[in-house]
């Protein structure tokens, strides 16, 4: 999983590199465009295009029937039932390409989340750093957070025994890429922090190793297996994307753009959707 994340992360970061300093919507538009084309290709290759075309024709026929026989209630009901039945068939036929697409799409979305889901820390803005211990790890005798030049730890640790958590407030003093160091009973673990607002991957949490953790949080290498820590978390502020003046979550913008582009290009790719 680490290898998959590294390859995919490298690809997405490389693809977005030229757009990193432009408004986020620009890069997202490019990604949506590529995704739409990929979806069309997969859809064409994995779906039964003839059956889909036939089912769509049947749905249209049903709609025509309703219009033609609008004074015949029985016929209208029969046509509506037919339309419903054909719709279910259409959904079943679409399911196959969806199954093909869902895994790669999930991997891509996970990567994009770390590019578009969070804003970088602005200098002067405070943020929390939380270190959570494994459920079976002993309470630490000594736990401290060390910030590099350009960042500052503003408070002592709050140690919360019931949560097995230590929390600090930190502030970025200058833009840059930093590593915070967490010292736990003589061992040191790091957590990456990025304070520029460019479109670059940001990892809000560094987790213990595990397939699901790696699948959902691919932007940063996991903690060592014997660390005794469950996570090191840094609460980046969430980013919203402006889509024609409408501020929305990037995922909403991504899906709207991908679907609109896919529909616009379906004839060029000779795909029946």
């Amino acid at each position, binding site marked *: 999983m680490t290898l998959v994340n590294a390859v995919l992360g490298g690809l997405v970061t490389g693809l977005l590199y030229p757009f990193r300093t432009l408004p986020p919507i620009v890069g997202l538009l490019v990604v949506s465009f590529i995704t739409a084309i990929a979806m069309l290709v997969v859809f064409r290759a994995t779906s039964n295009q003839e059956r889909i075309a036939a089912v769509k024709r049947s749905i249209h026929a049903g709609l025509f029937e309703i219009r033609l026989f609008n004074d015949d209630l029985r016929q209208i009901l029969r046509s509506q039932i037919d339309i419903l039945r054909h719709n279910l068939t259409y959904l079943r036929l679409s399911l196959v390409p969806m199954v093909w697409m869902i895994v790669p799409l999930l991997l891509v979305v996970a990567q994009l989340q770390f590019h578009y889901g969070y804003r970088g820390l602005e200098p002067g803005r*405070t943020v*929390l750093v939380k270190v959570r211990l494994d459920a079976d790890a002993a309470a630490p005798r000594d736990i401290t957070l060390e910030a590099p030049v350009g960042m500052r730890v503003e*408070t*002592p*640790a*709050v*140690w*919360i*025994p*019931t*949560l097995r958590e230590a*929390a*600090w*407030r930190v502030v970025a003093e200058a833009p840059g890429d930093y590593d915070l160091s967490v010292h736990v009973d003589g061992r040191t673990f790091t957590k990456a922090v990025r304070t520029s607002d460019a479109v670059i991957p940001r990892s809000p949490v560094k987790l213990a190793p595990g397939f699901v953790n790696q699948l959902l949080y691919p932007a940063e290498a996991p903690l060592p297996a014997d660390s005794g820590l469950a996570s090191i978390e840094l*609460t980046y502020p969430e980013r919203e994307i402006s889509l024609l003046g409408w501020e929305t979550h990037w995922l909403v913008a991504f899906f709207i753009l991908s679907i609109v582009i896919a529909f616009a290009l379906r004839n060029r790719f000779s795909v029946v959707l």
Partner: protein
Amino acid sequence: MTTPKGTTFASAALRILVMVMAMIMGLVAAGCGAGDPSGTRVIVLGFDGMDYEFTRQMIERGRMPAFARLAANGGFDPLETTVPPQSPVAWSTFMTGLDPGGHGIFDFIHRDPETMLPYLSTTETAEGGTSLTVGNYQFPLLGGSVDLLRGGEPFWNVLADRGIESTIIRMPANYPPSGSATRELSGMGTPDLVGTYGTFSFYTSDVLIASKDIPSAEVHFVEPEDGAVQVRILGPDNPFLVEPEKVTSEFTLYLDPEREVAKLVAGDEERVLEVGEWTDWVAVDFELLPLQSLRGMVRFYLRQIEPDLQLYVTPTNVDPIDPALPISTPDSYAAELAKATGRFYTQGMPEETRGLQEEIFTRAEFMEQSRLAGGDVRGQYQLVLGRFDAGLLFYYFGNLDQTSHMLFRTTDPEHPEYDPETDPEYLEAVEGLYLTMDEIVAETLDAIDASGQETTLIVMSDHGFTSWRRAFHLNGWLRDNGYLRPRNAQMANDPGFLTNIDWAQTRAYGLGLNGLYLNLRGRERQGIVAPEARDALMTEIADKLLAVVDPVSGQPAITKVYRREEVYAPGEYDHLAPDLVVGYAKGTRCSSESSTGAVPRGDVIIDNLDPWSGDHCMDHEAVPGILLTNKPLQRAAPSLEDLAGAILAEFGVDEFPRPSEED
């Protein structure tokens, strides 16, 4: 060579390009059309409570160079304030050009003569009408409303009619906003989410503090368990429940007493704060129904963890990013400001004066909170000023007034509570506030210079300020002179609100900071004074009040008593106006008890020992405001009532207030 398809694509692209360019040009044209077609620019800075005499002395000492520059170029004069000199009254007069008889705001508090219940004078919240009831729930079929009770026409209406832009920020007595300015943010009079002018919460494990009954506060006893406290902030009544029940928002505070630090978790928001620190604004949600909640925001101040927990929470302010109440014009303007400068206090009077009065805050803590509130306003001014292009910009600063109320005794060694050990330090703080106002004027002058555009700058205040040494129990005086009979003369803690008055034997009563009403038959619900006896009774009471001498100073306690007819134009608000307006001598003010309709026992004139040590609700001639301009105005404005007309004259408007249809 292009294929037919390519040609179609190219022509379509061209069409889209032309459309986009047309839209851009349209937007640019709209932008150019903003402001005044003649290019006139007027900036009005409203400094609530800035005192003429104090300002003059500061200028003479060379401490306010920007003000001195204005005084040299345009003039510096006292500005006659209203009768009475109270902020809601004065600002209503400023914006309408009418005396209180014309706009209907006579005091902070009015009473309904039909019910004899006091109410806040500027705003009325009406609940929804008919509702559909299902079990314990009700669903209003008609929405409630928040109505501005101020009458008259704000002067920026005239500008709107002429297509001139106006930006009106935090104008008092303008909640909900008038809707006629291009951009508005409401100010003094804007309630918190509970519907009050500011109800803070205090959580403590100190039994003594928790047992205190503090007005305008919710004090809760809490006991940490496993190093954490789980508590609730009280919101307003849930409008969807048949039986009134307050909605709540929960938060958890994890305590680390060893390091004197805590972590706060409220919904999705988390903060770490040390003892003595404030959080930034934290959004809080109050669930009304599943999937339906009310959004507000608060700031937390961790006062101490050991030996007892003390946590202060601000009143729940309307969140400007998602406002639950109408606080701006257009509705999105509050969010636009918040996104640019961060969330900010939206309650009308954000300085926590009650916290200092009730010893929840020390003076240093109050000053810190006041600095936070003032910082919000000042930071936003820089943004608004930077965006100001043409037309009118009015911007209000209330920090000086509210802070002066709490610190003005430091200017007066003869104040009964003056402390020669600590007060000189806070005198510097008062002067510091004046210096801040000077910095704001300097920034404005720099911005005007940088713009290279002819701009009129007007700096004004609604009234002045002075030390409040002596408190006058007006209702006590009326009782002692046989005009008022309490129901229970021995009541130790009269709750006020006119509840301890025997109306059958009362001829006159006091309510508000300067108001004195006759219990008039045909107007008051249980009136006993015949209308034909009104004149004689008013003369009798006024003469006696003017003869009252303060036994400590040997000076008159009251220097003016105005009849309503002398100072207010007659009109539709006559029934709300006090019959007599009492102008207390400089340094004397109506007691807090009397102003809320209580009948205090004991001496009539007492020392003011309240931390609220400065005031202005006295003889209006004793507390004039200020008027400075960067150039002579086209029309003189010796009083607040004249100023709106003078501002409009800069735009070439000859007549204001405009005659009504009836006129």
